[in-house]
């Protein structure tokens, strides 16, 4: 997902204002209840009612968006407007609401939000789960929604008891009076719904939090240990058929002709249809559709990418790197002049490959298209885009498409794309029945929207031992220009961490040259933080060694004005035993360090490795995190650990190669990701912080590669300036033994 502001994030979170109140009579709500709706400034009121997925009946046809429903039977339902893909929003967001509502977390029932303007994430400019900002977005919004609900519930109770509201308090799902009497929220809901919502509510001080900051159990865990959790691929509808899709082996190619005679006669096959996505086979069961797909005789028009390969892509990027600085993303002082006048300059070029997301759940979509509407069941990070994409494919209006967001079997940014939706919709429309279309692993891996490759050209200058100039030129395709056009100036999602380069250097230049490569690239967990942090933190290491300084001390001395950066750096050095690790010798451990600010979270990592006869062993990764206030530290820890493992896979083995426009890795045998038995020791330390909540889903990914490569340099004196690491180490080991 686009990073710090990639989708035009405002500098500060907008204040949540209640500017409208919807009254619902008991008949209009399920069980007669209370619905709290908030409208966000800047979000129009034009979307269709959120009636179906949220279950919030809207009999009067009024625009209503809601996060909370309290039934007369005391059920408390929360509508979560961010997609659960493992990062814990189905627990963290309810915790925010439950805190102010004075209920236990276990009392909350979760439903996924439908498409609705109130569910727009202002930080992302759409109903989008990404940029690691779900908690940042919800922090005030959902606590306010909880506090407003609590206030009217108390007011309703006070009215019933004919006492002043200040005499009452909310506690564990009930309103209690001084005499010890109480009423449940369910008993009060209908009356509370008739009261005006307070214009402003006081939110609890952090010192009085009951839930926030505690490692409470995830609400989605039970369903994930007994097979009952429903992912997109698990959707079942009456009369549903199954579909497989044949896509052009060459990326961007199209169907020239198809002979489906054999496939069409196979058992269970209903229909074969040609779409812009490829040839769809619809059958009773998926295995039948898959077998029939493999029996198709398709002639493909390869298109513009018929000769595309990695060498060609690299050439394009290198040419762009050589042809001028591009657009300026940051300019402090005059880096060019400072480099010219420096006593000593260093220059290095870093290169990164294409990567695949490889979510465990392959792409899939279930569509039920009828003449007057469409229900779409999909694990998506973009509800609005899914809706409009399905509408276009079905020939319907967006308002006629209901998007039902399922659990996501991994997102990592892949499900910000919707390329798997149209074929399912078209197939359902063609056969007049619900259709579930599933991509195989091979489909998924060879038709990803890949993490773009990048070249990072760096230069730095010293006057004496003082670092006076720093220049970074980033060359990469622009994901945002494809997905959320238009991009004015520099695409924010390619310059992450580079624009907030934290070290105290008087002359800094960050430039960007956009170079497209002919294939679709997409946001992947940590987005450009990964390439940029790799280049910046490895080059800082190069500079430290050039200056004859310890890489940790070198950084620390340049962070006098950055207390949060300095704090995590010092803490990771302390925790990892920096400078105290036995160095050298065949069994020796060597450490490398990296620092980053991303998603307003500050992190530092130390990697500990040994290299024996050229063979690399990663022993340990230590990560210290200051992510501001934490909603649930147990989830934070899991995200930081998970990000490190994701980063290890990418750093050690991640590389998608292309030959003749065809992706060469088709499954997990060729696209290697980390297995449980390959894990180093991982230690995470979460620092207490009063800062506003920062993102935790993505940032830890980015520090792994630089920390590792810096450790490898410490061990071998060899500077790796490209990824992945493992093939380079293997070649070195072979050379060593030869």
């Amino acid at each position, binding site marked *: 997902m686009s990073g710090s502001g990639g989708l035009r994030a405002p500098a500060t979170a907008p204040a949540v204002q209640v500017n409208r109140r919807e009254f619902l009579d008991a008949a209009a709500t399920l069980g007669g209840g209370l619905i709290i709706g908030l409208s966000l400034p800047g979000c129009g009121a034009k979307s269709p009612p959120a009636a179906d997925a949220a279950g919030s009946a809207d009999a009067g046809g009024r625009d209503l968006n809601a996060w909370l429903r309290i039934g007369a039977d005391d059920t408390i339902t929360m509508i979560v407007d961010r997609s659960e893909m493992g990062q814990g929003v189905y627990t963290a967001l309810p915790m925010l609401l439950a805190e102010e509502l004075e209920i236990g977390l276990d009392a909350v029932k979760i439903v996924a939000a439908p498409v609705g303007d109130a569910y727009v994430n202002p930080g992302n400019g759409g109903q989008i789960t990404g940029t690691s900002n779900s908690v940042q977005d919800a922090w005030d919004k959902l606590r306010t929604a909880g506090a407003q609900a609590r206030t009217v519930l108390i007011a309703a109770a006070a009215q019933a008891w004919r006492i002043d509201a200040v005499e009452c308090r909310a506690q564990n799902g009930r309103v209690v009076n001084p005499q010890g009497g109480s009423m449940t929220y369910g008993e009060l809901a209908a009356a509370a719904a008739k009261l005006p919502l307070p214009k402003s509510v006081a939110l609890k001080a952090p010192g009085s939090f009951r839930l926030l900051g505690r490692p409470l159990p995830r609400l989605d865990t039970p369903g994930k240990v007994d*097979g009952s959790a429903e992912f997109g691929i698990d959707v079942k509808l009456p009369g549903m058929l199954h579909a497989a899709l044949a896509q052009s*082996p060459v990326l961007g190619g199209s169907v020239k002709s198809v002979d489906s005679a054999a496939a069409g006669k196979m058992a269970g096959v209903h229909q074969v249809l040609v779409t812009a996505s490829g040839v769809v086979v619809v059958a009773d069961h998926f*295995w039948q559709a898959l077998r029939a797909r493999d029996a198709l005789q398709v002639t493909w028009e390869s298109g513009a990418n018929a000769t595309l390969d990695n060498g060609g892509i690299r050439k394009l990027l290198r040419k762009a790197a050589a042809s001028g600085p591009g657009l300026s993303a940051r300019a402090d002082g005059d880096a060019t002049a400072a480099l010219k006048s420096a006593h000593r300059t260093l220059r290095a070029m870093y290169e990164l490959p294409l990567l695949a997301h490889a979510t465990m759940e392959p792409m899939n979509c279930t569509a039920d298209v009828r003449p007057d509407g469409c229900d779409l069941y999909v694990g998506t990070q973009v509800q609005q885009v899914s809706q409009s994409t399905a509408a276009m494919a079905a020939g319907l209006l967006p308002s006629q498409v209901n998007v039902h967001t399922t659990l996501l079997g991994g997102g990592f940014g892949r499900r910000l794309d919707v390329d798997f939706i149209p074929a399912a919709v078209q197939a359902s429309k063609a056969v007049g029945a619900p259709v579930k279309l599933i991509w195989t*692993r091979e489909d998924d891996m060879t038709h990803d929207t890949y993490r773009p490759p990048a070249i990072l050209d760096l230069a730095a200058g010293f006057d004496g031992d003082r670092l006076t100039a720093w220049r970074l030129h980033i060359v990469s395709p622009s994901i945002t220009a494809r997905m959320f056009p238009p991009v004015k100036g520099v695409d924010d999602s390619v310059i992450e961490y580079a624009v907030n380069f934290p070290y105290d250097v008087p002359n800094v230049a960050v430039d960007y040259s956009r170079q497209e490569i002919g294939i679709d690239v997409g946001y992947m967990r940590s987005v450009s933080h990964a390439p940029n942090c790799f280049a910046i933190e490895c080059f800082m290491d190069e500079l430290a060694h050039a200056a004859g300084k310890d890489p940790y001390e070198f950084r620390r001395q340049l962070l006098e004005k950055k207390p949060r950066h300095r704090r995590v750096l010092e803490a990771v050095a302390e925790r990892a035993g920096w400078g105290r690790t036995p160095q050298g010798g065949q069994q020796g451990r060597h450490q490398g360090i990296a620092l980053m600010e991303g998603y307003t979270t500050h992190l530092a990592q130390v990697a500990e490795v040994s290299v024996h006869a050229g063979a690399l062993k990663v022993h340990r990764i230590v990560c210290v995190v200051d992510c501001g206030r934490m909603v649930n530290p147990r989830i934070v820890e899991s995200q930081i650990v*998970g990000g490190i493992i994701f980063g290890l896979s990418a750093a050690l083995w991640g590389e998608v190669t292309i030959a003749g426009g065809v992706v060469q890795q088709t499954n997990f*045998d060729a696209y290697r990701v980390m*297995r449980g038995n390959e894990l180093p020791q991982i230690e995470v330390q979460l620092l207490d912080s009063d800062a506003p909540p920062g993102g935790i889903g993505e940032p830890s990914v980015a520090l792994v590669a630089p920390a590792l490569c810096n450790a490898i340099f410490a061990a071998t004196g060899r500077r790796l300036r490209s990824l992945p690491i493992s093939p380079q180490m293997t070649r070195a080991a072979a050379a060593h033994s030869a």
Partner: protein
Amino acid sequence: MMQTAPVQDTQARPQAFKITVNGRELAVEAAADTPLLWILRDHLGMTGTKFGCGRALCGACTVHLDGAPVRSCSIPLSTVQGRMITTIEGLSPDRSHAVQRAWIELDVPQCGYCQSGQIMSAAALLEANPAPSDADIDTAMSGNLCRCGTYPRIRHAIHRAAEILKTGTGR
């Protein structure tokens, strides 16, 4: 231009089979080469068992066949007649299996997609080896991929499940 070579149709017509899943004998009609995975998911509606790779590389589809962990994506229907199949849905009626209890206690899952397979592999491991070492866990679990990176908690939870099995209590 490229051409995709057609695959020979094996003329595999649906046939009647009887298989035993979670202690119940069930009748299914499908081609003999249909992988058990798709029988469970599409024919029997038991979607707890997941499709991940189709080639026994990721472990998401792990079930027990006569008590042993197997990758159901690569087991043809014709070979499972008369054998005992256990899926995640049949591990316990109420999430009370020691592995499920440990998984809940330690909040192992993130996205959760691979977890049915992880749990089935872990349950089979503990059945064969009630007190596994880290090395035993590495060996038994190396076939189960997780992209979210839940591996450290999986290891911890297997040790915890072993403890639950030993003491018969949740501590």
